[in-house]
């Protein structure tokens, strides 16, 4: 009887074994993904690879994470404006310059941006709305995101490389695996220590030389404040059906022209750049009554100084100041630097 009870107590080994196996498999898959072995390449070689890389047709899943120290945006997870905080998953199909589909996956919703030739559609399942824009057939795809955050690694890398100048230290990191593919890492760090940005890390595919991941670290932070990268990627040409969009019956179908014409006053509010490199500050005139109830109203805090009073958003990577008399200052710097510019 004693051995019987003992044998039966041994049964606990089964559920415990299941837990052990699951955690072992999870742990091992993380360990195994850390050992790529690519021939060495210098930082400048990598930069050139990037510049010469032709973006072949591809499809895949992109995960974007923002940990900017901002509160989550109110609203559904599938809305484009929610992307400034939290984790978001996008599906991408890229068939060439004029055939792109991006889908932002929310829990029970989805927003799609579909470019096919001269048609650009923006679909929102939460708003049950399809918006159509006409684009000249030869123009580059433009995703009119309200926050203008780069959504594909290529877009993000282009934006950063455009900003590259003598203000930046460029170096290589170790080799990493992104979306199961071995990749080089290129590290860009601002020389100016006043910038909130600590470094920008680009993972560049070892074979195709396209950016697979972009991470932006704030100063003294071990984990990225902003990250966009492929979770899964395939270089097979995606089928034509992904780029076909016909607005479903019974939804609002809006031609997306009017909101540009709606604000004729916008033209005179040309933004200016003060300073250079990583610590440059963007200044602009804004209509406070129009902007304040929006993003700033929900994220900003009240601030005042010799420059007057206003609202300020302070995140890990950038700060934005809007004064009550309608001036906007933004940059990858601490709010103090913005106050300094504002009081001039």
């Amino acid at each position, binding site marked *: 009887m004693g051995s019987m*009870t003992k044998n*039966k*107590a041994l*049964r*606990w080994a*089964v*559920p415990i074994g*299941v*837990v052990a196996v*699951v955690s072992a498999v999870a742990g091992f898959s993380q360990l195994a993904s850390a050992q790529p072995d690519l021939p060495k390449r210098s930082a400048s070689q990598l930069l050139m690879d990037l510049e010469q890389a032709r973006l072949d047709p591809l499809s895949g*899943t992109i995960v974007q994470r923002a940990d900017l120290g901002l509160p*989550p945006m109110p609203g559904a997870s599938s809305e484009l404006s929610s992307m400034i905080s*939290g*984790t978001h*998953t996008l*599906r991408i199909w890229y068939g060439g310059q004029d055939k792109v589909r991006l*889908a932002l*996956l*929310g*829990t*029970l*919703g*989805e927003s*799609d941006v579909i470019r096919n030739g001269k048609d650009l*559609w923006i*679909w*929102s*399942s*939460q*708003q*049950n*709305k*399809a918006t159509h824009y006409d684009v000249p057939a030869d123009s580059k795809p433009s995703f009119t995101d309200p926050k203008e955050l780069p959504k594909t690694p290529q877009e993000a890398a282009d934006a950063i490389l455009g900003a590259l100048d003598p203000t930046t230290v460029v170096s290589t990191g170790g080799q990493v695996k992104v979306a199961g593919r071995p990749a080089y890492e290129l590290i860009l760090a601002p020389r100016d220590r006043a910038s909130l940005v600590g470094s920008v890390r680009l993972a560049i595919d070892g074979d195709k030389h396209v950016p697979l991941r972009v991470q932006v670290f704030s100063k003294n932070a071990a984990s990225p404040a902003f990250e966009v990268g492929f979770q899964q990627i395939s270089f097979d040409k995606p089928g034509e059906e992904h780029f076909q*969009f*016909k*607005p*479903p*019956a*019974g*939804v*609002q179908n809006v031609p997306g022209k009017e909101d540009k014409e709606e604000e004729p006053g916008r033209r005179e509010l040309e933004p200016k750049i003060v300073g250079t490199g990583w610590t440059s500050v963007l200044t602009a005139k804004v209509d406070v009554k129009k902007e304040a109830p929006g993003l700033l109203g929900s994220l900003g805090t009240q601030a005042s100084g010799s420059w007057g009073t206003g609202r300020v958003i302070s995140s890990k990577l950038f700060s934005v100041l809007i004064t009550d008399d309608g001036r906007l200052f933004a940059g990858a710097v601490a709010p103090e630097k913005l106050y300094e510019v504002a009081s001039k």
Partner: protein
Amino acid sequence: MSVASLAGTGRFFRSELLLIFGRRRNWLGLAILAVVPVIIAVAAKVNAPGEDEGGFFGGITTNGLFVALAALSVELGFFLPLAISTIAGDAVAGEANQGTLRYLLTVPVHRTRLIAVKFAALVVFAATAVLTVVGTGMIAGLLLFGGGKMTLLSGTEIGFWGGLGRVAMVSGYAAVCLSALAAIGLFVSTLTEQPIGAGIAVLILYIVSQILDTIPQLSAIGPYLPTHYWFAFGDLLRDPVSFNSAGPGLLSAGIYTLIFTTAAWARFATKDVTS
């Protein structure tokens, strides 16, 4: 397994189903589950959601199938887990409480088989509960709004039968998730002789898991919570179908089911049945 014992298992399984579906209180529970889709359909008929209303509720007026999806997304939050927790908590503890467990074991039923049959019956109940919600939702929706093309989350329209297929996939996914909760419930049920206590404990586990999942600071543990992927069934309504979250969801449900059915089996084998 010999033919005789196979037949015995079949008989036992049938009597187990009779135990669950023969009870008036369980019928009442299913009836409550069925009321919600009817309310949703009637409400949408009386006061149609606006054109700019998205999601499942917005789709109801164009396709009755959306009543089923809207009802499922509402009930998966509380009513369905409540039903599963109650029945699963009752599975072993209920019999122990009424003193029937002792008799069940004297008719030589192997304890392993007893746990297996109990779990199989719970899976049948989970599927029935989901079908009750989805079925009444579809009937009410199609009667009031008719069928037709279904607009997927990606903005693509598919035909009625395709839409029906998607609803079936969503139902299957929900049933798998609820079965994992049933496995946890079965284990809890072997720990006590108080069926109500077991049911409440499972419901509390469910709610705590949901709450932890919404705390941004705890997002690192989110994917390991049993309920994290429950609403990932939206993935099955995209074009093309995505398994980005639904895949891990099925895996997570499978792992939880395996851990807790074997834990229930281990616990029940060593349990002293005195009452």
